[in-house]
């Protein structure tokens, strides 16, 4: 089957175009040997099915970042018939750097010039005929978010050509590249790629074990190592920069001839708003306003009104009795229990997923989608960069942390945006330790605000300080890995409702796909554990810690186990315990702290294994659990020592 690779810089609208192009989605998953997500889908052209691959955003191919490595692997191993390079019309010169590299690859390219509407707003117009003439490839103007120009792009897919690019590398480097090219004998290297591979081996590659060198079968060759070292010495600087510079000069020339910058029809109000969001004082105010918005839409409306209706009226009064009557017809008690028993599938999987999580998450995704689409998130990253640095992260970690308040599992996936393994580890650790997901949070808030404001302060004060301290400690003890905070600040835009809706439904569907099987599985597990008496065994075994150290009733074990399956269910048990007098308010405060700090849920646990590997995942689980129990125990002792009650 034919393959078409979508490639482009980050934030040029590649994924939006991907969604527009494909007729059905085939797969989405991390590329073998990396945590970089690659999506694949199908497109029918003249009755023939073509696979579309959405590569991760790459700035370049000359350096050895994760995303770049994956893009290079797809190019070299899967040999796509065509590359569609998606460019941002506002910054065409930057995209051209990548075009220069693609030209060396000898693969046909079609250029999709995206976001021509935003470019026009900024007074930038791309002369696509001139561009086609200069590059020798089709260049199609599109607005991917609205689907404008996409049919024209599809029609042009058959006309892809190898970009015309007169490489003018400095002579010394050029000679070195030719020398290296001559030594290549490996059959693993596709013939048309040898030049690029030689350039890559000379530039961003690891000197001995780099990707391009391995591909070329040259990793053991000392003469190559010497050639690279010698060439680097001549230039006194990274060879990648020398190549990038040569490409840059060409890109500037093409840009100068094909793009005109005229009068700007700007939107001063939005620009002003964008600037205000960046400075500490006004930025904090805007942040506070957005948090308030999230609180009302997600906390009050979704978690309150909608969930209340779904749980009580819909599932409770409308579905519940009918289902009970229906199930009563089944002659076996075991089967009846399996469906609607305390740990049955309906009770443990269907109701929590559709009655609680789905509405809360959908509303969160919807609101968050608006905020995301407006271009606000990068500004928040800038605002909080310095603060995040204290805990070993940088501004980019703002996105996963914010997402953590909706669903820690979702946030764990999004830690992939972080650059270094170190940051991903710290972010995942802190997410599972100190960030409660919206489902859990809404129930916790509902209980605490009814009981005591001081209790609320103590619970969140302890959790927040512990998270910060843990971050600082991790930052100190983890080996230093360089990570740089550079990000583009997109213009503030009015979000498009349609876009937000699509995003929301995609995310909600993804959540259902991932969560439903797990919920069913864990409900079955708990059902079995309950039937064979494992639950009460666990309660007895954990009693010394729970009763002795934490000063809590033994039933707290049940809350923790339930909480491991669905966070808010565990909290709900706490409420029951307080209502029935098994637990007093001081105990509740301790229990809340332990519950928040404890591993969020089984889905999250599975994802940590997937993202970090079993070994690190286990380390995180052990550390987080120890932290939770120790903090709870210390809090219990301090509270009883100073005799504070709530």
């Amino acid at each position: 089957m034919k393959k078409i690779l979508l490639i482009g810089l980050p934030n040029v609208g590649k994924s939006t175009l991907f969604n527009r192009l494909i007729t059905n989605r085939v797969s989405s998953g991390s590329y073998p040997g990396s945590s970089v997500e690659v999506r694949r889908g199908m497109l029918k052209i003249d009755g023939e099915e073509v696979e579309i691959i959405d590569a991760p955003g790459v700035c370049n191919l000359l350096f050895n970042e994760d995303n770049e490595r994956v893009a290079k692997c797809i190019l070299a191993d899967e040999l796509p018939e065509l590359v569609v390079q998606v460019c941002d019309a506002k910054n065409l010169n930057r995209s051209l750097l990548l075009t220069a590299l693609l030209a060396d690859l000898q693969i046909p390219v079609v250029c999709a010039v995206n976001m021509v509407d935003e470019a026009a707003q900024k007074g930038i117009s791309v002369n696509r005929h001139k561009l086609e003439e200069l590059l020798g490839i089709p260049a199609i103007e599109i607005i991917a978010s609205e689907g404008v120009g996409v049919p024209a792009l599809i029609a042009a897919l058959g006309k892809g050509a190898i970009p015309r690019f007169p490489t003018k590398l400095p002579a010394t480097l050029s000679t070195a590249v030719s020398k290296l090219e001559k030594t290549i004998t490996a059959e693993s290297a596709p013939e048309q790629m040898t030049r690029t591979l030689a350039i890559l081996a000379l530039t961003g590659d690891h000197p001995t074990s780099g990707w391009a060198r391995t591909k070329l079968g040259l990793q053991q060759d000392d003469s190559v190592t010497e050639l690279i070292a010698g060439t680097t010495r001549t230039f006194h600087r990274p060879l990648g920069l020398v190549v990038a510079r040569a490409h840059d000069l060409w890109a500037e020339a093409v840009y100068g001839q094909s793009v005109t910058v005229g009068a700007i029809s700007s939107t001063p109000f939005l620009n002003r708003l964008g600037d205000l969001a960046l400075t500490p004082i006004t930025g904090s105010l805007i942040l506070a306003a957005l948090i308030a918005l999230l609180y009302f839409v997600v906390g009050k409306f979704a978690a309150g009104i909608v969930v209340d209706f779904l749980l009580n009226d819909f599932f409770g009064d409308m579905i519940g009795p009918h289902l009970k009557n229906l199930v009563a017809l089944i002659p076996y008690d075991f089967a009846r229990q399996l469906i609607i028993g305390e740990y049955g599938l309906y009770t443990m999987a269907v109701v929590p997923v559709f009655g609680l999580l789905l509405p809360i998450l959908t509303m969160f995704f919807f609101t968050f989608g608006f905020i995301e689409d407006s271009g606000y998130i990068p500004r928040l990253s800038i605002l909080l960069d310095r603060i995040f640095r204290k805990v070993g992260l940088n501004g980019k970690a703002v996105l996963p942390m914010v997402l953590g308040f909706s669903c820690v599992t979702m946030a764990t996936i999004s830690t992939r945006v972080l650059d270094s393994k170190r940051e991903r580890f710290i972010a995942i650790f802190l997410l599972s330790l100190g960030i409660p997901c919206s489902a859990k949070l809404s129930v916790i808030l509902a209980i605490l605000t009814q009981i005591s404001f001081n209790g609320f302060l103590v619970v969140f004060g302890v959790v927040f300080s512990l998270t910060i301290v843990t971050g600082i400690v991790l930052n100190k003890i983890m080996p230093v890995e360089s990570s740089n905070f550079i990000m583009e600040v997109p213009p503030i835009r009015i979000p498009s409702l349609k876009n937000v809706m699509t995003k929301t439904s995609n995310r909600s569907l993804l959540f259902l796909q991932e969560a439903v099987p797990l919920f069913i599985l864990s409900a079955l597990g708990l059902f079995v554990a309950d039937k064979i008496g494992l639950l009460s065994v666990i309660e007895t075994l954990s009693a010394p810690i729970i009763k002795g150290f934490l000063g809590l009733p033994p039933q707290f074990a049940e809350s923790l186990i339930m909480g491991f399956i669905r966070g808010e269910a565990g909290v709900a048990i706490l409420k029951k315990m307080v209502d029935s007098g098994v637990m007093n308010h001081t105990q509740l405060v301790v229990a809340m702290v332990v519950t928040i700090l404890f591993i969020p849920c089984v889905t999250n646990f599975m994802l940590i294994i997937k993202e970090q590997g079993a070994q690190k995942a286990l380390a995180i689980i052990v550390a987080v659990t120890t932290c939770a129990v120790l903090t709870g125990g210390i809090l219990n002792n301090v509270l009883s020592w100073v005799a504070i009650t709530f």
Partner: protein
Amino acid sequence: MKKAEHVTDEVLETVWRFEEMGTCTAEGIKKEHIDAAYRVDDAVLSELAHKGLICFTGNSIALTATGRAHALPVIRRHRLAERMLVDVLGMPFDAIEESACEYEHTLAPGLTEAICTLLGHPRECPHGSPIPEGECCKRSESSVESFVKPLNALDVGDSVRVSFIKKDDPVLIGKLVSFGVSPGKILKIRQKFPAYVIQIENSQIALEQDIAADIYGVRV
């Protein structure tokens, strides 16, 4: 008419450049100087060889250690002069060659070091060729107030022409280049706290302070 030592300088300089490119032959050297006001022929070359500045191996010519020591300051002056013309005077790349050729013979050693310091010890000429290190670079002097300053020494609202980036990390440099931050580009500092925000052409880029401190430029 060029003075004799100028001819020596010119020829040694050409040999140096050709060596950087890989191969240097007598034919190449002669061809390179064909339009010059002075003659470069076999006699000139063999005189240089006689002085122990170059040596012949078969068809190709190489600088001897003495020849290299002689050519180094010439190359250095030439490329520093180019840097100065572009960074300080904002001349276009293609218009600087002639003036730079003059400077390479006339700059006094002390003045060369002063210019080098003023420019912040640049490591390459505007065309991307390396500038040999001088004594001042090894000492990394900064006694003269630099004309070329890092972004953190400039103010919000300043427009800056980037002169060079003082970082060795290829991944970071790659990112900067692909965000459009590379020597010769003009950027505007919009904000310095809590992070740096710079406007470059039609986009805004946010940077942490550490990176901003390694981007050197001239106020324009």
